[in-house]
């Protein structure tokens, strides 16, 4: 399994500003994902951030709004740019790592709870 930490755990921001969320993993992983969970909703994939390649964004998400860095196999950042109240969500990173029986399993971080005023 993998242990994932995220910073900050929560933040309250003013509209028009930007916030960078960090995701740190305790082991080297190739595949990493960023998801968003809007209030009362389920998780939606924002982008895939595999080390060594540019992030791949899902329909409805663009690099200018959600730039992602993946400098090494244990770390990634997601920036939420020019924020509006609609960006208020929980942002979660996840990684694929060996689980029980050496089967690739997806684990999630604790999330970053963002409120935009």
């Amino acid at each position, binding site marked *: *399994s993998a242990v994932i930490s*995220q910073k900050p755990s929560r933040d309250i921001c003013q509209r028009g500003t930007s916030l960078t969320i960090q995701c740190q993993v305790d082991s080297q992983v190739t*595949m990493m*994902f960023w998801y968003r969970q809007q209030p009362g*909703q*389920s*998780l*939606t*994939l924002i982008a*895939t951030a595999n080390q060594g390649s540019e992030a791949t964004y899902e329909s409805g998400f663009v690099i200018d709004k959600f730039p992602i860095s993946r400098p090494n196999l244990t770390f990634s950042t997601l920036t939420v740019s020019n924020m509006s109240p609609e960006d208020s969500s*929980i942002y*979660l990173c*996840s990684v*694929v790592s060996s*689980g029980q029986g050496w*089967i*690739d*399993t*997806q*684990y*999630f*971080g*604790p*999330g970053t*709870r963002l409120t935009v005023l």
Partner: protein
Amino acid sequence: SQELEQSPQSLIVQEGKNLTINCTSSKTLYGLYWYKQKYGEGLIFLMMLQKGGEEKSHEKITAKLDEKKQQSSLHITASQPSHAGIYLCGAERRAGYALNFGKGTSLLVTP
């Protein structure tokens, strides 16, 4: 695109009772995950199923993937207040490991 439907949307059970949550996919499932989420927090991995007919158990929670690989169920035996939370099923996309999620089932266990 794949759609996952979870039922019921919410559930209130008395402590000690058994319960089942279902997750039905519009397409064949290649990997089906079950997670538990406490309000406003991250996802706790419960189990992952890949093979048709597969069944896994951990403590009082059992998950099954049907033979046709389009439906999964999560069964909790003798529920406890610690089981309360939101249960989410997630399905691997055919290409890559990214997941599509159901809308979740909110579980409350009363004393």
